[in-house]
């Protein structure tokens, strides 16, 4: 397969270029991969800030940024043992619907509570000692969090539509920590983590301590002043859940104990992070297991994509323990999921071509020309 990557693979760049090429160019998805990796880069309220002038010519911040060149074949080989297939939604073993058997978890979760359940099982089975995931602060702003108990995992249940610099928490872990870690993230965060695992960063916690990666389906995040918009329009201190229900609804909902407040999706579209329009991955293709909603047809359930042995083993454990219940998903739903994922790839190709002005230059994305022709036709 024809690939274009080799020339850019040897780039030696650092924070200056990170800001010029990625952050200031509107390509940063605010995953937190660069921040916390050194004293200079900090994530704060939806921005990545260079606190002081870093002199380095060769910086790990640029190297691990998911929006710089990545060798997709090597990544896929590392996680699944095969090259990147340029398929609709990545490598997977099976797709099904699942939900927690624990009504308390279901009540506190976004959909079926599958992620929370899988994590608590992984913790109980000593597959992991702690989880790096996203938690909302008192201001309902998402940030990375290291959950060490079932109680703490439950505190992280539920979705935020704002970007969370979750990888910053991983970067901040003590260098000599030997905790086995779980990781929960949206596709860009999962990909960045895998990029780190391919060539582990120096001077940080051993990234191979991450033994379980759960990816979350993601279409886009709301950034660029969205939090301030929310503060203005909703009573955030009492908010308990945020949701963007699937078709036929077109709203952004904020749930409080006393009910639901909504805004039209159209009214908040301008807050969608521009970087998300250059994202190629809706289903977290490099995760061990990916989880999304059951959509309108299966409300209260999760769509689960098991991608490798690690994912499959965990699901089996959860079922065997009676923590998770599953049901088959109709073929039509899988087709729809693939179509949605493909649609995102197609839009991203168009956006990347528009950005560079050439079909031959897709920026960070290393896919074959054959693939481009096939997808855009």
């Amino acid at each position, binding site marked *: 397969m024809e690939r274009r990557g080799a020339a850019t693979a040897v780039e030696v760049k650092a924070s200056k270029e990170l800001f010029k090429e990625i952050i200031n160019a509107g390509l940063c998805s605010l995953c937190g991969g660069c921040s916390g990796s*050194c004293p200079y880069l900090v994530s704060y*309220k939806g921005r990545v800030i260079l*606190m*002081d002038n*870093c*002199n380095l010519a060769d910086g790990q911040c640029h190297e691990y940024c998911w929006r710089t060149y990545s060798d997709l074949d090597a990544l896929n080989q590392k996680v699944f043992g095969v090259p990147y297939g340029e398929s609709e939604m990545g490598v997977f073993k099976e797709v099904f619907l699942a939900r927690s058997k624990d009504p308390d978890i279901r009540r506190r979760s976004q959909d079926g509570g599958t992620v929370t359940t899988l994590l608590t099982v992984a913790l109980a089975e000593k597959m992991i000692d702690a989880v790096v995931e996203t938690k909302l602060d008192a201001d309902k702003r998402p940030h990375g969090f290291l959950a060490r108990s079932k109680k703490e995992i439950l505190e992280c249940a539920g979705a935020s539509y704002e970007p969370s610099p979750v990888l910053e928490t991983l970067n901040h872990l*003590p*260098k000599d920590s030997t905790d086995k870690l779980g990781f929960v993230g949206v596709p860009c965060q999962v990909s960045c983590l895998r990029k780190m695992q391919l060539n582990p960063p120096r001077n940080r916690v051993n990234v191979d301590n991450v033994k379980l990666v759960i990816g979350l389906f993601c279409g886009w995040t709301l950034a660029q002043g969205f939090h301030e918009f929310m503060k203005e329009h909703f009573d955030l201190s009492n908010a308990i859940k945020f949701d963007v229900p699937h078709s036929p609804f077109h709203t952004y909902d904020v749930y409080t104990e006393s009910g639901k407040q909504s805004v039209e999706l159209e009214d908040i579209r301008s807050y969608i992070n521009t970087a998300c329009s250059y994202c190629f991955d809706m289903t977290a293709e490099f995760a061990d297991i990916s989880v999304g909603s059951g959509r309108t047809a299966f409300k209260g359930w999760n769509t689960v994509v098991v991608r490798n042995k690690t994912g499959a083993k965990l699901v089996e454990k959860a079922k065997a323990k009676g923590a998770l219940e599953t049901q088959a998903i109709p073929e039509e739903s899988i087709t729809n999921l693939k179509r949605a994922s493909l649609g995102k790839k197609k839009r991203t190709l168009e956006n990347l071509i528009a950005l560079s002005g050439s079909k031959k230059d897709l920026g960070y994305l290393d896919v074959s020309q054959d693939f481009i022709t096939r997808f855009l036709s």
Partner: protein
Amino acid sequence: MPDIDVNAPGTTVLWMGNEGIARGALEAGVGFASAYPGTPSSEILPAIAEVAKRMGIYAEWAVNEMVAMESATAASLAGIRSIAIMKQNGVNVVSDFLANLVMRGIGKGLVLICADDPGPHNSSNEQDTRPVAKWLDIPLLEPGDFQEAKDMTKWLFDLAEEINTICMLRTVGKIAHTRGNIKLGELPVVEHKAHFAASYGFRGAGPHAELHKKLAKAQEKFESSPFNLYIGPDKAELLIIACGASWLYSQEAVRLMNLQDKVGLLKMGTIYPLPEKFMEKHLKKASKVLFVEEVHPFVEQGVMELVGTLPPSGPHPVFYGKRSGHIPAYGDLDPSVVIKAINSIMGLNYQTRDAEYDKKVKALAQSYVTARSGTLCPGCPHKASHWAIHRALQLTGHEGFGTSDIGCYGGGGVGSFGITKTHFCMGGGIGVANGFGKLGRFGFDQPVVAFCGDSTFYHAAIPGLIDAVYNGSNVLMVIFDNSATSMTGFQPHPGTGRNAMGEPAATVSIEAVCKAIGAQVVICDPFELKKTTDTLVDMIENKTGVRVVIMDRECELIRARREEPPYRVYVDPEKCLGEDCGCDMFCNRVFLCTGLTWNRQTGKAEIDDVICAGCGVCVDVCPHGAIIKEPYTAKGKEKVAVKGKEKLKEVAAR
């Protein structure tokens, strides 16, 4: 500091110019001395204050130069010889009062001492105050050596009384701060008694005309003043006219070049108004004249004016100096500058020093100095405050910046992470920030932090703060309260609870003043980096209006004189990342405490045990926990140092 009241007339002592000035005041029978600290004038008042009680006189640090001058004037009016002391910037502060004072008159002798800072070495600006004397019509003297520093000061009291106007002495750093021989005179025994005979006040018509008569009288006295003198041949190839420290440089240059029989030296001590007849006589000595003086071409212009009024009796001399480019009109001078000018004018080629040798000397001198940029003292609380302000401004975005005034904390970008973008005069931090804070109506949305010191707060910041409240400005003021006027030598101020003579004094609370003005006030300990940063972020993001954060932490140099350091600090070389990515010498390159050094062999940070003040702030700065602090004990000191060194050896061996 010597006891300047030593009663030994005729003895020669080796004193600083500033001590000479203080002694001169004592020999004149001064009874009242007031000053505001300002380098290079700062030692004069303490020298007087030290002996004040014994001498039955009064000495004080005023809150600013204007107050000092006004207080001294009152004493003069009440029949007590008085002195006001300041640096060049202070004269600007006083100028409005002076401009009115000269139109009236004085009581007993009243003298203004101003120490200028050519260079500048210790100032935010380089300014020559001699033109101020001319502009305000104040008789002015400038000492050419240490003896004159004393003698001129003493004589100025007599002159002031005789012509009934304030008189001024201008000196420069290199006379004020260096030491030389001073032959002491008699100390009078004066019993000061204050009473105001209300004859003073507006004197009807023509006070300005009156002033000019006083100046004419001063000029007449200057014609025969021993402070002006000529050394050299009757007919010279070149006449050098010099004053102040330049007189010393000129003498040295002529001696080194062995030109004593060709070059005449005219030393001027009474420089405003210039003694015209005296000048006219000496101008005839040569057809070429070189003016050597520091900063402004003051005497140079005065002589040129004078020549323009002389009857035409042939061609006037060719003038060399600042106008011709032979002497720079900025920076301080030295003998080599004078030699260069003489070489050029007389077509000589005297080498001050062999170029090769010069290079070697410079290289050798540099090898003894640690390479680092300007920064603050180790353990300085301002460093921690700057750190917090810098981080808060970076986090909150919108291109926030600082506006500073004068103090250790100011320093432009130096040592303050480049936060301060404007750096003007005392009070200029809040003053300018207050202005920025009113620009919201024109779309201005950058956070502005006004930098202000504790002493500066009393000096000049209060009107700016009041204006900010009154005119609805949106401004954050940080007051770096380190309980001293540190930059000029730890002088007390109204917040410290003691006065210049070492007595207990009432304190004026900065917090209470700010609150009374109507500002929101928060007090922080800057050593609590995170808490302080969070407070500042909250102030910037969530609060509007006039906000004051007081950084409350004593100057480390004062604390260190009193007690042992709080912590013993060392670097764990296992944890230190060195130059590798993820740190990039963060502590040495960004935080820049002088107590942190870099071991080039191991590529790791180290603590310099001699310099480290043990504040422990860097422990919270290191992103990898490699800097470790332990409570200080005299015993522990050795143990920890050994531990650090052993670890280092291990790492180096690998």
